[in-house]
């Protein structure tokens, strides 16, 4: 192997990488918050919602979980404009990520809700709590705590999956790497650096979510 590795381009191109990291973080943040919210809403709909909504949510979840993220992205960005829904690449990327995480989050949160004994629901009602209160305090919060590790992994997976949004020209970290390697012809080094950054982001995000879990569920943390 006669190849001299050269990371000299880093000196010139680190602002590009930094900007890409910023976009990836932003996408993850928005996608994470909205995606989990959508997941909670869908889990509520499937567990306690009106009868007609259950098959709709189930179809949505199955559809998303059984198709690649890349295709969902293409469908949102290239396909939806045919219906008159035109949006920028960042909006499309965000929308696709929210829809994606929403479906997985729904399944994960639903598993947590199902693990709540039915009697707790009745206990909540007998304490004079409203349906919403019961759902929030008795069902949802303990359920979220139970499935927090699984949900965290899913958020990390979505963050890593966001590498695909470079394909619709959203200027994330992968896009930055593509740009740099097209300028420097140092493809391997560029992608190697980008991969390391993704790894660092994943490790950081995991720790952050763990810390967040401790903050949100403080009293019950001592299990």
């Amino acid at each position: 192997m006669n190849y001299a590795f050269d990371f000299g381009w880093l000196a010139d191109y680190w602002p590009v990488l930094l900007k890409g990291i910023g976009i990836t973080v932003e996408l993850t943040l928005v996608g994470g918050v909205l995606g989990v919210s959508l997941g909670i809403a869908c889990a509520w709909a499937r567990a306690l919602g009106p009868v007609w909504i259950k098959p709709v949510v189930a179809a949505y979840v199955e559809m998303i979980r059984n198709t690649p993220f890349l295709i969902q992205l293409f469908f949102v960005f290239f396909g939806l404009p045919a219906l008159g829904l035109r949006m920028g690449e960042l909006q499309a990327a965000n929308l696709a990520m929210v829809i994606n995480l929403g479906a997985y989050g729904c399944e994960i949160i639903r598993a947590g809700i199902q693990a709540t004994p039915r009697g707790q629901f009745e206990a909540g009602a007998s304490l004079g709590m409203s349906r919403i209160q019961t759902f929030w305090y008795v069902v949802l919060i303990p359920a979220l705590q139970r499935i927090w590790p699984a949900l965290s992994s899913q958020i990390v997976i979505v963050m890593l999956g966001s590498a695909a949004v470079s394909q619709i020209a959203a200027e994330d970290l992968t896009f930055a790497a593509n740009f740099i390697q097209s300028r420097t012809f140092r493809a391997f080094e560029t992608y190697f650096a980008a991969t390391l950054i993704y790894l660092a982001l994943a490790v950081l995000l995991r720790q952050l979510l763990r810390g967040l879990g401790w903050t949100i569920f403080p009293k019950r943390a001592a299990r």
Partner: protein
Amino acid sequence: MNDFSTWDILRNLLMAARWTVLLSLVSFVGGSLVGLALLFARIGKGRLGPAFAKTYIELFQGTPLLMQLFLAFFGLGLFGIDVPAWLAAGLALILWTAAFLAEIWRGCVESVAKGQWEASSSLGMGYLQQMRWVILPQALRVAVPPTVGFSVQVVKGTALTSIIGFVELSKAGTMVTNATFEPFTVYGFVALIYFCLCWPLSKSSQILERKLNVAHRNH
């Protein structure tokens, strides 16, 4: 511009879907073999094996599959080989699949109650005998549903290989879109074909889980 009928679109996509299926099979089978080796390294005794397997799994689970594909594509090129897309795609997917399967299976092996290890060792069984006769048969029962479930991720993972130029279902979708200017129809069909590939796997994973009654078994 060519005139494409809906049937032309679908036929082109279905032809390309064969490559998606083939790549998925290769990745899954190859990944299982490498994953099994990793599993033994991970749960084995000694220090080097587990440390290596742990790092490997962490690296592959902590980085995007797309980056792994790029690195395989350009990394193999460093050796002066002219890398065809299928080779980089197959290699990256096999290594990626192996990492996830090894981790899934480790959980299954660890779900076997500790008393089983102690009981079998008190019967004078060696490590390999314990594995062969006591641990793996029980772990296998637990492992089947999540393994089938993960095969869905493999099928979906192959979509990313379109980005390094492997012509499978997703790439065909892009190509057909460029020829027909009907992204809604084309990507709709592409999604539908993926769904038809993945949904039976997801469903059978669920059914197997219920059938093997793993969730409700207590140790």
